[in-house]
């Protein structure tokens, strides 16, 4: 049975079928097309360098009008990421347009990693360290980068 959400999700797969995107990838999980697995691989020159962060994206039948829920499965230490892995990002909530597809969501999370806005923290400890003790912040980030290699 084809629904608008399913048809849109098929289209959201296209970017990866034509050409691999830089550092982000996503695909429906084997048994449920309304649930995608995704990976964000961080570029050089950021504290998250070489991290292979795994995420799960859950869509409802109201997608793309309603945004999916996106959660880190890999441990994450970041001002915008809650302890349960969910992400505080405006483009995943109110300021989102239905034209925003999966690759745009993942790319915006990827750039968020190195450009947090510590003023509306989901993780206040990360926000405080980011502002007051960058060395300790980067130490904590390197720990979760290493953890991301072993958590597969």
């Amino acid at each position, binding site marked *: 049975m084809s629904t608008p959400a399913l048809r849109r999700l098929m289209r959201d797969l296209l970017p990866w079928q034509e*050409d691999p995107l*830089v550092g982000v*990838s996503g*695909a429906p999980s084997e048994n449920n097309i309304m649930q995608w697995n995704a*990976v*964000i691989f961080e570029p050089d020159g950021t504290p998250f360098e070489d991290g292979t962060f*795994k995420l799960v994206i859950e869509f409802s039948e109201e997608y793309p009008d309603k945004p999916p829920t996106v959660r880190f499965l890999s441990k994450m230490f970041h001002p915008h990421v809650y302890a349960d892995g969910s992400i505080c990002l405006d483009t995943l909530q109110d300021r989102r347009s239905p034209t925003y597809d999966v690759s745009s969501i993942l790319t915006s999370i990827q750039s968020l990693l190195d450009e947090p806005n510590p003023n509306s923290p989901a993780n206040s400890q990360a926000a405080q360290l980011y502002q007051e003790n960058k060395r300790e912040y980067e130490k904590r980030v390197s720990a979760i980068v290493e953890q991301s290699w072993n*958590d*597969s």
Partner: protein
Amino acid sequence: IHSKYRKKHQNEFQLLVDQAKKGYKKTGIMS
């Protein structure tokens, strides 16, 4: 839930890791 889910989908995630890295190799940022 996290680790159980991840273990169950381990192969799928490994494919996605490889694909995400491929994107970088294409740009020459990574060798």
